[in-house]
């Protein structure tokens, strides 16, 4: 009994869109469309749309990570190269390039 009832109901539902009339959008669609196009033509809209793209956002994150990694790697190599080598020290002596320290400022000659 219930099955028969269900079958009849399904049949009615399947035919419920027979003779459906076409829906129309709200009036003045073209005016709204023009306003939207005007808005989308602005530089800021294009820029925000470009930045909001998932691929661009992902690329930006990758770029930041690469910059971070390169800063860490290069800062390590630079700090190790700060130690002065023999020839450099000799040149410094020859031209009296003595590095001034805070103690020398205290012993100012009259």
């Amino acid at each position: 009994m219930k099955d028969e009832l269900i079958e009849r109901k399904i049949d009615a539902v399947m035919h419920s869109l027979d003779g459906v009339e076409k829906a129309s959008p709200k009036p003045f669609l073209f005016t709204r469309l023009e306003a939207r196009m005007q808005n989308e033509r602005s530089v800021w809209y294009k820029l925000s749309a470009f930045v909001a793209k998932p691929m661009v956002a992902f690329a930006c994150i990758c770029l930041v990570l690469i910059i971070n990694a390169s800063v860490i790697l290069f800062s390590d190599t630079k700090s190790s190269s700060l130690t002065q080598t023999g020839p450099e020290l000799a040149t410094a002596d020859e031209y009296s390039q003595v590095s001034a320290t805070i103690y020398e400022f205290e012993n100012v000659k009259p």
Partner: protein
Amino acid sequence: MTEETELIELLKQKDRAAFKNIVDTWQNMVYNTALGILQNAEDAEDVTQETFIQVYESVSSFKSESKFSTWVYRITVSKAMDHIRRKKRKKRFAFIQSLYGKNDAPVVDPPDFFHPGVSLENKENAAVLFKAIEHLPGNQKTAFVLNKIEGLSYIEIGSVLKVSDSAVDALLQRARANLKKILKEYYNSINKEEL
């Protein structure tokens, strides 16, 4: 040169009057298709606008190999499908956020959709059918909507979806079978009195 070809040629030159004419001529067709697929008036309006912007921007790539209406239908369907994907992504993201307590608003199902073109006596049944249509796979849903709501022939649906007539026939048969299955499950789950 027919009036339609003339309009397209003018649109390629970005003529405003031609664009207005094209929007006025095809807006019901685009909106009705989008509404059938999306089942939401605001989303359908949004997709209608997106479709016409796409038509305006890429009309130069229209080669007259197919009918202009077929080309517009194709853009509408693709925009509507993109919209569904975007909405699903947002819904998933909102759900994940709610898990982490960032967004306490519950993820709710949309209310029943009532198509404005359905007669009053069929209103309730049509709402149930639309609910079932929502569960159909993309191509079956598109074929069913184009056939039932837009009244397109198998040949026309075939050219929109770029498949043969027999493939459209198979798609529609599968869509009907799936809908019947979904409806049977639905009615089996409710009481006899509610039928």
